[in-house]
């Protein structure tokens, strides 16, 4: 048993915390710094994420290029497919698995015990997601350039192309975060990948909008990916089509509001449950 020297009332009231509530930017930068460092410490995360879009790009172009171009539906099928490869590369890329690991290990609780602002716990992860999707987009874009695809919108258009892809990737990332926060279960987070399929395939993945018929044509109208692909393709083929770019950007932002709204609700629920 210890013989504690109990402080007097004066000692207790004189305590000045070394800790303090930092600025919002400081909170964001602290969480983002850790999350980005985590991205670079998991190179194994990038390899499948990179192989998938390249595989689909090569297979789809190899299988459908002649028929698509021969029928006159598409002029340059490789250019038509490059945005699809970008969508495949960035959709579902997030730090949600790392978030689940934090929840399971108790580190998420440790974060909640600090004075950091709660929204920054998600926003900081989003910063790492932007880095991830740009890192994944660059090799796919480089592959397209090597295969002879040129951008009507020039170098600035390529940069916008990257940011466009990143915005879509970020918009979709809210779903795995919502599932991670709701369930704390890695299997559930991995299962969120099934959301990818309706978004990625019920749209203008293989054919332009004008060539779609029946129910697929109808569904594609309500699929935000249709507009994101439209914006991306316009940067390659048309130059600067403000109307298409705005539509695609708005589609991404709309989905982002929904997905991160769900993620915020899930976070609030998790905090409430303790």
């Amino acid at each position, binding site marked *: *048993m*210890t*013989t*504690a*020297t*109990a*402080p007097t*009332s004066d*000692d*207790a*009231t004189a*305590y000045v*915390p*070394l*800790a*303090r*509530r*930092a600025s919002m930017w*400081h909170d964001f930068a*602290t969480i983002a*710094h*850790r999350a980005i*460092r*985590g991205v670079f*410490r*998991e190179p194994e995360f990038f390899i499948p994420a990179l192989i998938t879009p390249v595989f689909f790009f090569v297979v789809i172009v190899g299988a459908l290029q002649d028929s698509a171009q021969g029928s006159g539906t598409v002029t340059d099928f490789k250019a038509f497919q490059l945005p699809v490869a970008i969508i495949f590369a960035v959709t579902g890329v997030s730090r949600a698995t790392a978030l689940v690991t*934090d929840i399971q*290990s*108790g*580190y998420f*609780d*440790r*974060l*909640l*015990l*600090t*004075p*950091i602002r*709660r929204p920054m716990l998600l926003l900081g992860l989003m910063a790492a997601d932007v880095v991830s999707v740009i890192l994944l987009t660059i090799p796919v874009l480089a592959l397209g350039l090597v295969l002879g695809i040129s951008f009507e919108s020039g170098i600035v258009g390529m940069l916008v192309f990257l940011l466009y892809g990143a915005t879509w990737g970020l918009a979709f990332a809210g779903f795995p975060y919502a599932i991670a926060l709701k369930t*704390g279960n890695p299997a559930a987070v991995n299962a969120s990948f099934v959301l990818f399929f309706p978004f990625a395939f019920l749209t203008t993945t293989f054919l332009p909008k004008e060539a779609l018929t029946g129910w697929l044509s109808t569904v594609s109208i309500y699929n935000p990916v249709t507009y994101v692909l439209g914006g991306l393709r316009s940067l390659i083929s048309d130059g600067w089509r403000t109307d298409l770019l705005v539509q695609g950007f708005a589609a991404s932002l709309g989905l982002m509001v929904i997905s991160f709204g769900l993620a915020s609700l899930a976070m*609030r*629920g998790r*905090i*409430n*449950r*303790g």
Partner: protein
Amino acid sequence: MLSAIQARELWRTFGTNEAVAGIDLDVPYGEIYGFLGPNGAGKSTTVRMLCTLLGPTAGTATVAGFDVATQPGDIRLRIGVALQDYSIDGKQTGREMLDLQGRLYGLSTRDIARRLDDVVGLVDIGSAIDDRVDSYSGGMKRRLDLAMSLIHRPQILFLDEPTTGLDPASRSAVWAEVRRLNDDYGTTIFLTTQYLEEADELADRVGIISDGLIKAEGAPNELKRDIGADLIVAEVDGDLELAADALRAIDGIDDVETHNNEITLATTDGAGLIAEVAVALSGCGVPVKSLTLRTPTLDDVFLQVTGTHLAGGGDHSGRPDTDEAHQSDHASAEATS
């Protein structure tokens, strides 16, 4: 006296499960308070409420003078917490974890550097401080976890079973650090444990919790003294009540308790009565497997107030483990964000 931690009729339910069923606490500044109980008794739920991770279902609590429900931000600046599991990111190095922890608490770069020097000594893992935490042993992780909870020099430290799973050497190191923090800095420490010797060794006062209620509270020596100066424990193999009745007739026996196949006698003169006890047991024809004279332990206190042993006994209430209760039940508590 000012209370570092105060609770009044604090409740927390998960559905129909009353994990904490109306506890009162008064922990003065500078005290090491041991919260002793088996798994599922409500220790971790209480800590999570006091640390602002979990809203109370009913009742009130203040930590460092601030209300857990309405002033959680003020509390978080003043408390350090080492939860039951190692709350560590294995992909980072020990130094990065400590640095990050300092930043999360808004410390300046200079303060972080100074505090790193202070707490790295506690971690005591040499150059491994720059290795990734994944490569650490359980003891190293626990010490790092404790160091992280101290980086912002908290006024009140919550330690939730800080030595569970540690080897004896690591356990001793943690005990020494807890004592040093209390002696040198007057840090108030709220320590949950299911280890009797830990509570006995460290705590100025102990609260015994079972089924979500505090069953007894006081300095370990006082609690033990309440049982009696000496205990004679007879392990019998036969009619327990017959033997107990025979022993109750002996002058100088203050109390007789039976549990499983044990009879525990409280007396002020164990040495003088043990022979008479042996004769009485022999006289009633109940075979005796062992007869022991010893001073009371906290386990005896626990047995007296809960009717069950704590040592090696775990939870006998049938209550689910607290953490499992968190996972399985989505109670609608108030947020303490």
